[in-house]
């Protein structure tokens, strides 16, 4: 009965990966390394959360990585010029939000295909980041951001706390607010939402706007980790985010998706990358392994669906 909320196939993969790497990867199952996986996965989660909503509503955002890079460059440049952290973060968030709103308006109001629109904004954001920096890293960003990044509220690394906070906020919105219901409804049955008198286009644009905003905010963690802004730092990260969402069981149809699934997807990709690192597998092979992971998760999901639904249960 509960196929919509049951365990995604990726959960099984995650357990298998954890067991395999614990046995064969030297130093994998240690607390510092586990925390390291969390730290590495936190930026990805910040992108994957809004990506879940975008994919649930039959959309796509390819511009996230580039927007994140641009926001990081803006953040670092402002810090380098002596502006406060709050101002710099607000500017980064603003840059992200602007791109998100642009994506949303083009996709929703002009009814352009999201793939094409966000491929375009990817190019614009990436180009702007390179122009602003002349292709160089922005260094000398002061102490405030690195200090914040190194802080450990409740003994947990700042980036993990941030990602967990974002996860809770998204979960609350999806489960407890009207907006959350409307996001599911938008992907599942747009007509129903129109007839319910909801401003559907507004909700739809908001979903893309949140995608941009989260890309902007993620610049805080990325820039903090590198203590510098780099114009190509987050290149291709949107593909990891899409992979995480799909591995987590969200489909492009019917408004079917869960944030818990996406969290599992992010962790699975994080564990896979980290484990292969620990086992000294080359980075080129790591890219291939994510491809294998996505397909494996889809195969497991469809096999589970076939098992759960006995033949001929139409009536």
């Amino acid at each position, binding site marked *: 009965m509960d196929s919509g909320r049951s365990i995604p196939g990726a959960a099984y993969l995650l357990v298998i990966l954890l067991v395999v790497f614990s046995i064969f990867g030297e130093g994998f199952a240690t607390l510092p390394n586990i925390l390291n996986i969390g730290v590495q996965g936190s930026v990805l989660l910040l992108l994957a959360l809004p990506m879940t909503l975008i994919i649930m509503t039959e959309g796509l955002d390819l511009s996230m990585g580039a927007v994140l890079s641009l926001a990081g460059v803006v953040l670092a440049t402002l810090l380098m010029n002596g502006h406060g952290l709050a101002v710099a973060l607000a500017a980064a968030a603003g840059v992200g939000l602007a791109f998100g709103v642009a994506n949303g308006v083009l996709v929703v109001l002009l009814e352009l295909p999201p793939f094409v629109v966000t491929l375009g904004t990817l190019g614009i954001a990436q180009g702007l980041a390179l122009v602003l920096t002349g292709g160089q890293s922005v260094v000398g960003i002061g102490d405030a951001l690195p200090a914040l990044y190194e802080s450990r509220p409740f003994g947990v690394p700042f980036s993990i706390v941030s990602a967990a906070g974002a996860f809770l906020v998204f979960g609350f919105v999806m489960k*407890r607010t009207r907006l959350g219901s409307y996001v599911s*409804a938008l992907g*599942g049955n747009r007509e*129903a939402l129109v007839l319910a008198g909801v401003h559907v286009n507004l909700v739809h644009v908001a979903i893309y706007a949140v995608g941009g905003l989260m890309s902007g905010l993620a610049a805080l963690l990325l820039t903090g980790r590198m203590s510098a802004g780099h114009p190509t730092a987050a290149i291709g990260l949107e593909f990891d985010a899409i992979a995480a969402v799909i591995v987590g069981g969200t489909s492009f149809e*019917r*408004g*079917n998706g869960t944030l818990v699934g996406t969290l599992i997807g992010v962790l699975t990709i994080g564990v896979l990358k980290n484990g292969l690192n620990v086992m000294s597998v080359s980075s080129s092979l790591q890219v291939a392994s994510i491809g294998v992971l996505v397909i494996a998760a889809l195969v497991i999901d469809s096999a589970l669906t076939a098992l759960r639904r006995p033949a001929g249960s139409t009536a």
Partner: protein
Amino acid sequence: MVDAGTVHVLLGQNGAGKSTLMRILCGAHHPDAGEILIDGQAARLRSPADARRLGVAVIFQEFSLVPFLDLAQNIFLGREPGGKVPGTIDRRRMHAEARRLLDGLGLDVDTRTLAHELGVAQQQMVEIAKALSQNARILVMDEPTAALSDREVVRLFERVRALKREGVAIVYISHRLQEIFQIGDRITVLRDGKNVGSFAISTDLENPKNLENTANLENLVRLMVGRQVTMSYRERFCETPGEVLLEVRDLRAENGVRGTLDVKAGEVVGLAGLVGAGRTELARAIFGADRVVSGSVRVIGAAPGRGPAGAVRAGMALVPENRQTEGLALMRSVQDNVLVAGLRKLFPSAWYLAAKAARAASDVINRLQIATPSPARLVRFLSGGNQQKVVVGKWLAAGSRFFIFDEPTRGIDIGAKAELFHVIDRLVASGAAVLMISSELPEVVAVCDRAYVMRDKAIVGELKRADLSEENILRMAMHHG
């Protein structure tokens, strides 16, 4: 004009303008001229929110549920009871009120169930609960009983009568004429977007003889189609059936159904039973869509190959209940849809010849009189009755001889129904055989040469033409012990 506390029935063929009128009433469509009066005041319905504010609620025939939201979320979509923090939902209150509404309709399903996990009939009940939850003063129902079993219809009618007593005005659209006389106070017939007749139903409901006033029926049908149509659907019944086209012996399928039956050339054989008796499952097993555990299925004297592909090659065709998702590619043209199953036969050389394809498609379009401006029209834009014909046409082009029709008249109007039965009649007259699954007992009685009755996933009896009556079918379908 609808008075408070009455049920006003709207009748009309597909395309007569019922749906457009409904969409105007719910604010999704804007009228070019004329006005709508609510409580004697000109109402401006510019958006669904306007309609809701004025107390108009609509139950749509096309399901307006969201598959991955739970039942409470679906019922209150757009009207969620607010929590303490703005924008949040008071989930406890929402689920409690949803529970109360579903109890009122006799639907015993957890309100946290996701909508896509329900069957069609249950989804329809949720749809009704959704409209009731709006405390509407004007309730518009479009074929609310199309997917319901008789027991659920009784429940629904109890609710409708209660609403009438509370002073709710109801606009009721249905193709089931019996219902109209049971529940309606006035009837208006629409044709080509115009009101062609409106009169009170003066039937004495206590007198069962009046429930099916044939003269009245004929009048309504005549008004709807604008010409006289006869209520008899068959030119003549089959007295000397030909060879056995389908022979099923001691079938047991993985989905739990079992039975023995045969259908001969020239026959229309009914498969009757209550909702859940296993009719669709039996059809799926015969067609190879569900696995057969034991027993045999023979088509035109030979065992078909594996699966639906084998069934089709053997000359079998299934016209499914859910035409849109199972039988049609809505975004493709009439021609593409009509030819898709017959490509192998039409082009044995595997080369697609455009001229030959066009000829074959227009041949089928003419034979079935599919109302389409051109073969290139997307099937999505055809009316329900014509979509039905496209599904049948697909198998005609493939040269099928044994047809299974699963609830062929669901959601189509009387005019289209008559045409569909003429198509069936023509099919069997040309040497084909038809197995017809139907929940509409009057149709089984009016159309079939014989009927098998199912109960609890098994065939429990057979009725010859002479014994074929609604009472006999019901007796078999409900018998216990």
